[in-house]
């Protein structure tokens, strides 16, 4: 013959799930009644424990990772678009090379874009990246409008980067130059958006 309720039975009584024996036993056993009261007290004490506050602000880290993931997602989704762009450019290059000398030339200033110009655009892009880093955008608070503009610019840059990656393997220098020129334009707009947090003229 059992003498007292187990802890599991006491908890079941508290939670309204106990069997008949435990419920009946509790009506006349002062020991188990006291133990049940202690269970209630312990739960109340647990609920009364103070809340903790995080020792450091983690929002900047969350925000940075969320932005990176968003860019990766855009890049992934943009891969098909970039492939289409690359295919279009490859077609354009093919048509141009099949034409008589000079007939497939691109308009100025693209036609004059040479090795030096491409290198200059890449340098300019790197300088803008450095300027953006030195500005420390991760640690700054933006209003909703500026955040939207910046996210849009970052998405466009990700698409251009995908295009550069695709065209860089097979495309011509002129096509690459055009893409790098777009990148410089967008990077410049991005830096401006971060600095002014106000306006951006659409591309």
């Amino acid at each position, binding site marked *: 013959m059992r003498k007292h309720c*187990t*802890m*599991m039975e*006491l*908890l*079941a009584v508290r939670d309204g799930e106990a069997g008949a024996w435990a419920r009946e036993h509790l009506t006349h056993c002062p020991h188990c009644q006291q*133990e049940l009261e*202690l*269970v209630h*007290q*312990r*739960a109340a*004490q*647990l*609920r*009364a*424990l*103070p*809340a*903790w*506050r*995080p*020792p*450091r602000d*983690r*929002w900047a*880290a*969350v*925000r940075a*990772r*969320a*932005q990176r*993931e*968003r860019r990766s997602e855009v890049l992934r989704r943009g891969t098909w678009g970039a492939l289409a762009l690359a295919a279009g450019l490859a077609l354009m290059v093919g048509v141009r090379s099949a034409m008589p000398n000079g007939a497939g030339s691109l308009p100025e200033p693209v036609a004059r874009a040479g090795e030096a110009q491409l290198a200059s655009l890449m340098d300019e892009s790197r300088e803008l990246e450095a300027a953006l880093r030195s500005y420390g955008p991760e640690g700054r*608070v*933006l*209003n*909703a409008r500026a*955040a*939207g503009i910046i*996210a849009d610019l970052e998405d466009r840059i990700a698409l251009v980067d995908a295009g550069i990656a695709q065209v860089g393997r097979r495309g011509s220098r002129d096509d690459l130059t055009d893409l790098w020129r777009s990148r410089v334009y967008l990077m410049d707009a991005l830096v401006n958006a971060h600095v002014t947090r106000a306006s951006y003229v659409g591309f």
Partner: protein
Amino acid sequence: MTMTRATVGVIGVLDDIAVAQAKTGDLTALERVYRAYEGMVYSLARRICRTEEDAEDVLQETFLEVCRSIRRFRGAEPGSLTAWVKRIAANKALMRIRRQKYRDADDLPEDGAVAGQRAPDVGLQLDLEAALLRLSETSRAVVWLHDVEGYTHEDIAEMMGRTVSFSKSQLARAHQRLRGWLGGE
């Protein structure tokens, strides 16, 4: 699910517009969600995880998941966002303790004295905070989620990938040990 002290004051801080903006991925609105719930999430994580660093990581992982998934959040009734964020936090914390292999305090005998503390025959009286820390992570998680956060054994079993009986036995084990360590209060 009951409302803990950490949750009090959250509802009402975030209006429907802020939530709708957050669902579009607006980082300013998502920061408002973070500010509203960071204390609740950290507190829950701190109770389940053993270290401050783990709790901070859970905080970060939780809000990263919030940023990823909030556009799929469909709750409309008051408190549903709180419950949703809390559920993510609980899952992240439980996932973390599953991954990590800490030395389990349950391996110590219940009346075993810790080096430098009083001998067993003196009667080990711990305060509740210390007693909670002395529980195994699983027992502590179950007692906290059930007795404080108000999750049912079915909820806990689902989150832990275990059975309802497992959750009930862990709760009983936690209470039995707290009873032994804390005495008659």
